């Protein structure tokens, strides 16, 4: 895991006072607060790092350790572990490591802080009850869910596993590709007793159908044989909710479009309302004509000229 320069993150000098750290943290938090960056995972990650930097630098004990080991913290950690092992074997008791002797909160997700932080200060190293830091809403969690277009034609319940928690929620029919929905209170735990973050699920909808989709409208191009196009007739086409019989007018042109009202896709959050289906006819010219067919077409040609 990479070393994180908390001073650089907060834009302060190593000799910064507690007041300067607090001021810098406030300034950066204002810039990267998740509420100011809807649907921006990068800003949320950065905010998480800022919280982490503040957590370490605003605690004199943690700051001292961080300053002492700096970039060589990894080697220092190995040394510390070796020392602890020795101590364990001597005392046959639990070694506290960096956390020794302190009471730690168990309310935080393991992945709330970076690997660097976990490695250096322990997974549950955050102090409780000191109230040095202001309350902050928990980290918002971003998740992606891949679905087929045919899956979102009707509303459905889905269970997703986010950070080991099973969350059951409804996917409304008509949800769009790259659309994000928010599930309140299913994100990370709050900082210093702040409210829980939210879970944002972005849908990646794979079009597994023969239709093109634009919002609730669907588009499809249908090949029609020359004779049906010329003389008219009936064809059967597939729609999202079954087969439909269409009557073609005589002399239907290639590229002609018909609208089938209400045969499109489900409208988002509008129960039992549907868009339209647009069918474009593409007239298929016959190939491999027999001699007789050629003669007959020539006859037709003469009639037209």
């Amino acid at each position: 895991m990479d070393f994180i320069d908390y001073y650089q993150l907060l834009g302060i000098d190593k000799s910064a006072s507690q007041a300067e750290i607090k001021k810098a943290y406030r300034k950066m938090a204002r810039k990267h607060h998740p509420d100011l960056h809807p649907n921006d995972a990068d800003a949320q990650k950065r905010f998480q790092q800022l919280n982490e930097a503040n957590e370490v630098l605003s605690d004199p004990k943690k700051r001292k350790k961080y300053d002492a080991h700096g970039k060589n913290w990894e080697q220092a950690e190995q040394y510390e572990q070796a020392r602890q092992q020795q101590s364990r074997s001597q005392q046959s008791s639990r070694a506290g490591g960096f956390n020794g002797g302190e009471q730690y909160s168990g309310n935080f997700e393991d992945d709330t802080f970076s690997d660097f932080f976990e490695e250096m200060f322990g997974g549950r190293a955050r102090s409780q009850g000191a109230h040095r830091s202001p309350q902050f809403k928990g980290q918002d969690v971003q998740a992606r869910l891949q679905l087929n277009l045919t899956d979102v034609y009707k509303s459905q319940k889905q269970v997703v596993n986010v950070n080991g928690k099973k969350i059951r929620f409804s996917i409304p029919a008509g949800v769009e590709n790259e659309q994000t929905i928010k599930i309140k209170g299913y994100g990370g735990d709050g900082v210093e007793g702040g409210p829980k973050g939210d879970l944002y699920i972005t849908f990646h909808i794979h079009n597994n159908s023969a239709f093109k989709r634009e919002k609730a409208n669907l588009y499809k191009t249908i090949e029609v044989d020359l004779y049906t196009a010329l003389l008219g007739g009936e064809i059967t086409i597939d729609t999202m909710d079954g087969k439909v019989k269409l009557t073609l007018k005589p002399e239907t042109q290639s590229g002609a479009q018909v609208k089938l009202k209400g045969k499109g896709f489900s409208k988002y959050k509008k129960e039992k309302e549907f868009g339209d289906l647009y069918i474009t006819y593409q007239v298929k010219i016959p190939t491999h004509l027999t001699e007789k067919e050629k003669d007959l077409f020539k006859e037709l040609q003469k009639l037209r000229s």
Partner: protein
Amino acid sequence: MEREYIEVKEICVVYQVEHHFIQQLRDSGLLELVLIEQKHYLPYQFIPRFEKLKRLHYELEINIEGLEAIENLLERVEKLQEQNRQLKNKLSIYE
């Protein structure tokens, strides 16, 4: 029947905010309150909005004028994000 409103007094207790803060949000048009029998209520649908404004105000110390500016800009950002998403989906028809 499900409750549709929460009384402002209750909000102050639950969220530990001053009544004055909610008044300021109402006066600036950031929050719409409903008056029922001489008591002010917040419709439940506006709770997420209130929570966001509360976080910005108390956590980041943004004053009411700042909240107004942020709300306007966030609305624009969300509109542009939505427009961008729709255009991307529209473009995929021609791909």
